[in-house]
């Protein structure tokens, strides 16, 4: 398992990276933490002529509060989601999910931007991004645009990032009063890809759900908003009855693939169980 040969370019800036990419005539791959790209090279699943290393571009790093938004640079490592005080305070669902992402050494190196751009439907961070309504800032040769997470994840491993573009930051709306979160997943072993996972953010006003966002992962080809379940909870107290209604509604939200090792109805069953558990254990964050 040795990578095929390629050229390497350590980009100093986003512009330089995009220029290098363009000059490679589509035969280039961006490298950030490398934790998805490098194994795929070792497995010889791809063979780009050029690797453009984004990891040392200063503008891709940094975590800062910008008005009503927390801006997280794409090169932020997974471990920072656990340790960074700004993320803890303003994006607590990322902090809650991070310990579930793979293993400590992976988290030291893997990047939030890399994980979102990779868009593995079994990954935690894309689901969190959808649940908390992040906006993804994408740099392209013609300018910068922000894409809501709901419109960012298109398919398995496919996002709104066009070839040559670079995800440069994640924008997270800061929590509002009454905000609660919940995160959990069902995995065979610690750090494994989840069989099913759930990221939930809600706003409660006088114990009544005024806003509910449920994002499930490992249930389809991308992080999946459980719209019917959200409706089932809207305007209600979270109790056994409303949770049961939300669980029941999930069959309208999910249509996972069927597999002898993992039948679709088992995934729906697990999603119901998990959603019930997460809704029963929501944590107040603001």
């Amino acid at each position, binding site marked *: 398992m040795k990578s095929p040969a390629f050229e390497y370019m350590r980009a100093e800036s986003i512009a330089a990276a995009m220029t290098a990419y363009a000059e490679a005539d589509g035969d280039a791959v961006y490298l950030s933490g490398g934790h998805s790209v490098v194994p795929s090279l070792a497995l010889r699943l791809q063979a780009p002529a050029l690797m453009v290393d984004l990891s040392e571009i200063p503008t891709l790093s940094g975590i800062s509060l910008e008005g009503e938004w927390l801006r997280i640079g794409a090169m932020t490592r997974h471990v920072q989601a656990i340790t960074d005080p700004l993320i803890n305070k303003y994006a607590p669902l990322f902090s809650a999910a991070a310990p579930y992402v793979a293993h400590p050494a992976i988290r030291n*190196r893997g990047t939030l931007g890399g994980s979102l751009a990779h868009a593995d439907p079994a990954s935690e961070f894309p689901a969190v991004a959808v649940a908390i309504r992040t906006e993804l800032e994408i740099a392209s040769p013609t300018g910068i645009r922000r894409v809501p997470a709901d419109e960012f994840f298109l398919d398995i491993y496919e996002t709104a990032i066009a070839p040559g573009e670079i995800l440069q930051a994640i924008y997270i709306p800061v929590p509002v009063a009454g905000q609660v979160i919940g995160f959990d997943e069902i995995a065979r072993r610690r*750090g494994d890809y989840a069989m099913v996972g759930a990221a939930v953010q809600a706003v409660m006003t006088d114990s009544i759900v005024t806003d509910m966002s449920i994002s499930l992962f490992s249930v389809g080809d991308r992080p999946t908003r459980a719209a019917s379940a959200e409706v089932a909870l809207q305007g209600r107290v979270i109790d056994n009855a409303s949770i049961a209604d939300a669980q029941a509604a999930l069959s309208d939200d999910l249509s996972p693939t069927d597999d002898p090792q993992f039948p679709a109805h088992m995934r729906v069953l697990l999603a119901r169980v998990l959603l019930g558990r997460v809704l029963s254990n929501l944590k107040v964050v603001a």
Partner: protein
Amino acid sequence: MKTEITLTINGEAVQEAVTPRTSLADLLRDNLRLTGTHLGCEMGSCGACLVMLDGAPVHACLVLAVQASGHTVKTVEGLNESGEIADLQQNFYERNALQCGFCTSGMMMSAQALLAANPGPTRDEIRDALSGNYCRCTGYEAIIDAISATAAQRMTNAGEAQ
């Protein structure tokens, strides 16, 4: 085409010309003959290749050597010579927390990082910290014991030092 890289490995400045596809693990093992870093899966699943990169354990199989240029790497050989893991090594030895020894340097990297971040971990926290380190021989319990004993000793020593 080879690229010149410079980095600090175990406190020594290293200058090497590598092909971009060379992983940090292959640089360490093949070019520099630091064979205490092992390769078990080459895709970040087994933890045998963990090294300290800028002070934190990472998979040397998932980092390209060119990416490590300008950075600081410590391998088991360096940690051994500096004496900073002497107590951990002693406890692994006493507790027989290794058999074939192939996973051991990766285990110690994870342990060292855990104890730096969490000086008094529970057994469950230790198991969690080792969740990416595969060992086929021991059954893990002895490794947990050895790390737990090291934590206790370090806490005692830190208490005495104050």
